[in-house]
């Protein structure tokens, strides 16, 4: 019976298949079985705080730091990033293609073009709120053109697709979405590459001082494994539709 390490993670790492790719490698090297639950970022952090898992893989740096500060989590290490992109219908009714993110957001608000928001306090949603601030547009809570789904990334993209709306997504999920549409999706990338669009993933261990039962040693082994060069290389090599999804940046 292999020792079991429990991890809470966000849906993006699971839905893209990254974990299915890494877990067997980890088991082969360390003999540790990784079991993960993929949930919203907020819920993942809450599970960590309660000591229901041993380790976290999430992407909401600001909130992560709050949890570290409060003493719930320790040993935060950056692992990799991907980036956010603004997507929308190929016809691009608001004409945002090629603009900076801040300008694009402003134009969307001015033209009251349909924008679909996750509105679920996820990493992506937090990033979107940051973009509105950057564009100096108040969060358009009750506007007709602002659709708040409160759902995961893929369902939110689907809603945008059905409604011909714009939305913000992480690149990984978008590639998955492209794949689902056999590479010919109704929505396309319109804005990308801005520095503010970086989406940072980190691993964190649950603080053993609060929870004596957790497998802290296994969590440390996992964190070490994730940041070591061979693993980092493997992450970089993980591809979907021949596209790289995550960019390793441990120690940077």
């Amino acid at each position, binding site marked *: 019976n292999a020792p079991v390490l429990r991890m809470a993670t966000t849906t993006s790492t699971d839905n893209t298949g990254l974990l299915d790719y890494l877990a067997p490698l980890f088991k082969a090297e360390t003999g540790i079985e990784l079991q993960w639950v993929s*949930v*919203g*970022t*907020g*819920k*993942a*952090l*809450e*599970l960590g705080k309660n000591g229901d898992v041993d380790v976290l893989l999430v992407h909401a740096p600001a909130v992560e730091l709050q949890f570290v500060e409060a003493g719930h989590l320790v040993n935060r290490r950056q692992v990799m990033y991907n980036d956010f992109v603004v997507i929308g219908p190929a016809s691009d009714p608001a004409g945002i293609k090629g603009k900076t993110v801040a300008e694009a957001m402003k134009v969307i608000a001015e033209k009251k073009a349909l924008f679909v928001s996750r*509105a*679920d*306090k*996820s990493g992506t949603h937090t990033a979107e709120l940051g973009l509105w601030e950057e564009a100096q547009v108040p969060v358009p*809570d*009750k506007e007709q053109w602002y*659709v*708040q*789904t*409160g*759902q*995961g990334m893929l*369902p939110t993209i689907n*809603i945008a697709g*059905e*409604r011909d709306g714009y939305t913000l997504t992480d690149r990984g999920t978008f590639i998955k979405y492209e794949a689902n549409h056999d590479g010919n999706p109704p929505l396309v990338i319109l804005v990308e590459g801005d520095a503010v669009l970086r989406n940072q993933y980190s691993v964190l261990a649950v603080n053993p001082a609060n929870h004596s039962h957790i497998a802290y040693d296994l969590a440390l082994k996992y964190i070490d494994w994730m940041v070591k060069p061979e693993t980092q290389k493997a992450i970089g090599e993980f591809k979907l539709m021949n596209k790289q999804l995550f960019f390793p940046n441990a120690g940077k």
Partner: protein
Amino acid sequence: MDYILEGFSIAIGLLLSADEETFSAVFTTLRVSTLSIFTSLLIGIPLGFILGYHHFPGRRLARTVVDTLLALPTVVIGLLVYAFISRRGPLGELGLLFSLKGVAIGQVILALPIVIALTASAVEELDERLRQTLLTLGADSKGLALSTLWEARYAVLIAAITGYGRVISEVGISMMIGGNIKWHTRTITTAIALETGKGQFGAGIALGLVLLALAFIVNVGVSFLRRRATA
């Protein structure tokens, strides 16, 4: 444990402060569940009567199929309805996706097997002498159906209550078809799912309590009706 206590205090807070978001969800829930359950009863009770009353070839198979459909998960219903009403689907033109009507279609599919199976069983349990009495008094097929259902009224009511509980508590269809769009298609259950996903467990429980309060009020009404029908 803390979440539960927290849930209670949040729930009271939401109700006392007449929180706008909460009330929007409550109202949406009531609208769609009422539409769904009445449609289900309208279709399901006659079908349940036929299934429980008539001895037609293939009846046993039909019952087994209905019983099987009791196990239809809401996500699957959501997917099936989505396949029809999405823009790429055959009914895409009707614009039912992300609308309460669309949700109601899915919820009717959800409640129908319950209403049909329980109505059929209620009708089946009736005394054989009832049929004979109605026929000897000259009932035609319509009179027979109506009077039989009236005799089985308490059991049919339980079918309705069970169906209603199922509809009001479901989340998969509302999420998939309604889209959980704030101020539009967000129901209490999709709001609970959202809060839970955010890790706001207390708020999730609070909304759960609001939903139960709603169901309680409906059931007190039903129980009152039922009492009047007995006395």
